[in-house]
C-alpha cells in the first residue's frame, strides 16, 4: 500500500485504540463509583471521540477518492451526522472537562493558592461569555492582555 495512504490510517487506528482505552476505563469506573462521578472523563471522551470520528471519516472519503463523497458509500452521511455532535455537544458541556478552568481550577495547585490568580481570571473569562478558553489566550489573560 502507498505510504501516503498507510501512515494517516495507522495514526487514526492508534487514536482509536487510545480513545477506546479511556472509554473502557471510564465505563468501568462508572460501574464502580456511580455514573455521575466521571463527568470530567466523559467530557474528554466526548470531545475526542467526536473529533476522531470526523477525522477518520474525512480520511475515509479521501482514501475512497470520488466515490467516498458519493452516496454509494455511507461516509458522507456519517460525516454529516457526526459533524453535528461537534456543534451541539462541544460548546455546552463537553469542553468543560477539558478546559483550563477544569485543569487548573479544580486541581491541587490552584486550590492551594499558587495559581489562584490564573484560576480566577480564567473563571472571569468564562463568566463574561467567551466560553472555554484555549491555553494560549489563558496565558495572554494572565499577562494582562485582556
Amino acid at each position, binding site marked *: 500500500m502507498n505510504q501516503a495512504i498507510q501512515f494517516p490510517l495507522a495514526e487514526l487506528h492508534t487514536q482509536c485504540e487510545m480513545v477506546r482505552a479511556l472509554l473502557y476505563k471510564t465505563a468501568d469506573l462508572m460501574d464502580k463509583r456511580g455514573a455521575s462521578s466521571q463527568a470530567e472523563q466523559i467530557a474528554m471522551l466526548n470531545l475526542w471521540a467526536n473529533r476522531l470520528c470526523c477525522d477518520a471519516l474525512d480520511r*475515509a472519503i479521501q482514501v475512497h477518492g470520488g466515490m467516498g463523497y458519493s452516496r454509494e458509500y455511507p461516509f458522507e452521511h456519517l460525516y454529516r451526522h457526526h459533524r453535528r455532535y461537534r456543534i451541539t455537544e462541544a460548546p455546552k458541556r463537553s469542553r468543560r472537562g477539558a478546559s483550563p478552568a477544569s485543569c487548573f481550577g479544580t486541581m491541587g495547585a490552584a486550590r492551594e493558592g499558587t495559581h489562584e490568580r490564573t484560576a480566577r481570571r480564567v473563571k472571569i473569562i468564562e463568566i463574561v461569555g467567551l466560553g472555554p478558553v484555549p491555553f494560549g489566550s489563558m496565558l495572554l489573560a494572565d499577562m494582562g492582555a485582556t
Partner: protein
Amino acid sequence: MALRFINENRIRQAAASLGVAQMSVNASVQYAQKRIMRGKRWR
C-alpha cells in the same frame, strides 16, 4: 439523578462515534488493499 442520565447518554454517544471512526478506518484499509492503480496494487 438527571446528571446520571446525561452522563450515560454522553458516554454512549462517544462510544457510537468511536465505533464509526473504527469502522471507517477499517473500511479505508480494506478498500486501499484491494484497489488497483495503473495495473498494479498499491503496495
